[in-house]
């Protein structure tokens, strides 16, 4: 089921892109509105790739995409008041789904009244992240209360994956067409990022970009580069990579 839905959504995104140049994140937001029973979609992409700073510091204001004014307003509101479902996703590590904001929004006294006033009756936030590498968030809203269906939740997760991939591609300029590295149950990519961040003395974000750069330059799948790093046949130094 997953693979078919994923292929379908990928093809839709490719068709969307052919109609006009736009970032993957913007395309994902637009696709959410078409495919899911939501009124609008917004996304904040962190301008400074953070390393998982303490929650007390709201994420730096970054690039905001929104399909309508309400979505734009919700993105702005969360950053301004420093609380809301979007920020909670980084606390919990998972999506925050609020089918009825008027009923369940009491935990955000600074956010909920403003959000309701903007016209959001339900809010669904999905973190865009790769472990501790925080890239941003995708926030959907509906002007009437009600949950997303199981199929819609699956699609939202797939679109979240694509948005995450899109952000990483745009940051390092390497379009790696296949998503498998994000979903690979062989977790060596994440282990390799941890190893390389120590080898280079950099953040996990930077280590991941370095791995991708190496894969691109040597025309190797990222999973293969990761495997070599974990097997300790490939090390990274500031100047160049050493091969044993």
């Amino acid at each position, binding site marked *: 089921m997953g693979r078919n839905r994923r292929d379908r959504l990928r093809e839709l995104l490719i068709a969307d892109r052919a109609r006009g140049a736009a970032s993957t994140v913007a395309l994902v937001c637009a696709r959410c509105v078409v495919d899911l029973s939501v009124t609008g979609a917004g996304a904040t992409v962190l301008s400074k790739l953070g*390393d998982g700073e303490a929650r007390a510091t709201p994420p730096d204001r970054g690039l905001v995409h929104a399909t309508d004014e309400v979505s734009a307003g919700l993105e702005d509101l969360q950053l301004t008041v420093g609380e809301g479902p979007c920020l909670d996703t980084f606390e919990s590590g998972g999506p925050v789904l609020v089918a009825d904001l008027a009923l369940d929004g009491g935990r955000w006294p600074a956010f909920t009244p403003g959000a309701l006033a903007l016209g959001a009756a339900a809010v669904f936030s999905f973190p865009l992240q790769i472990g501790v590498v925080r890239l941003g968030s995708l926030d959907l809203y509906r002007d009437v209360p009600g949950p997303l269906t199981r199929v819609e939740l699956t699609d939202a*997760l797939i679109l979240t994956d694509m948005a995450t991939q899109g952000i990483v591609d745009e940051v390092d300029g390497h379009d790696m067409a296949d998503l498998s590295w994000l979903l690979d149950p062989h977790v060596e990519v994440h282990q*390799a990022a941890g190893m390389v961040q120590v080898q280079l003395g950099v953040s996990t974000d930077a280590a991941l970009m370095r791995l991708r750069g190496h894969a691109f330059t040597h025309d190797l799948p990222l999973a293969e580069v990761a495997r070599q790093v974990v097997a300790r046949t490939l090390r990274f130094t500031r100047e160049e990579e050493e091969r044993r």
Partner: protein
Amino acid sequence: MSTGRDQRLADTFVSLADTLVADFDVLDFLGLLTERAVELLEVDAAGVILSDQRGGWRPAAGSSEHAELVEVLAAQTQQGPCLDCVRSGEAVTSADLLADTDRWPLFAPAAVNAGFRAACALPMRLREEIIGALTLLHVEPMTIDDSSVTLGRALADIATIGILQQRAVRREEIVFEQLQAALHHRTVVEQAKGVLAEVGDLDMNDAYTLLRDYARAHQRRLSDLARDVATGAADIAEMITWKAKAGA
């Protein structure tokens, strides 16, 4: 069941209940559950796979993180007893994987190669939905007896309850949120393992063991410690020194 097993069973429920009321961490909990499953059911290895909610499955915890077990758990998300189990909602067993290469032409030889001959998968069911499976593996051919299957099912049910974390399931979305958060924490653990492996010149299983043992000894949640290790907030040198003093 023997009296010895009764006692170990009681101890297991107490320690699992402890994790449920204290500062709960789902990866801690599932890790502990797989370790207890190995002891109680007298098998060589155990693991939990969870739905990624996108039509796929991902390993979430294992009784160890030796490469062979990690490989077999990952393989089980593509073919094998676990996949059959989550699709059917029924327990799936193989007393001897060497005899089951027709059943699972990719998985069975790979598992045998990794050193496992017997396998059993038990569903983690929440109402009508299967959210994962508890898998048991043994290095010798083995037929698992009925009382062990019953106990295994009980452990799988406990795993499911653990995912819900005591919360009244008022909202369907809670399960969805919790599963995604668990998978996220798992990714962070992998990143942390890489950091520890590099700093301490450890293999991945030793890196995981260090993380887990240090967390337990210092009453820290595994997920939180992993995050601190991966973000540079943890004193890794101190962790490694502690481990050396505490003994292998």
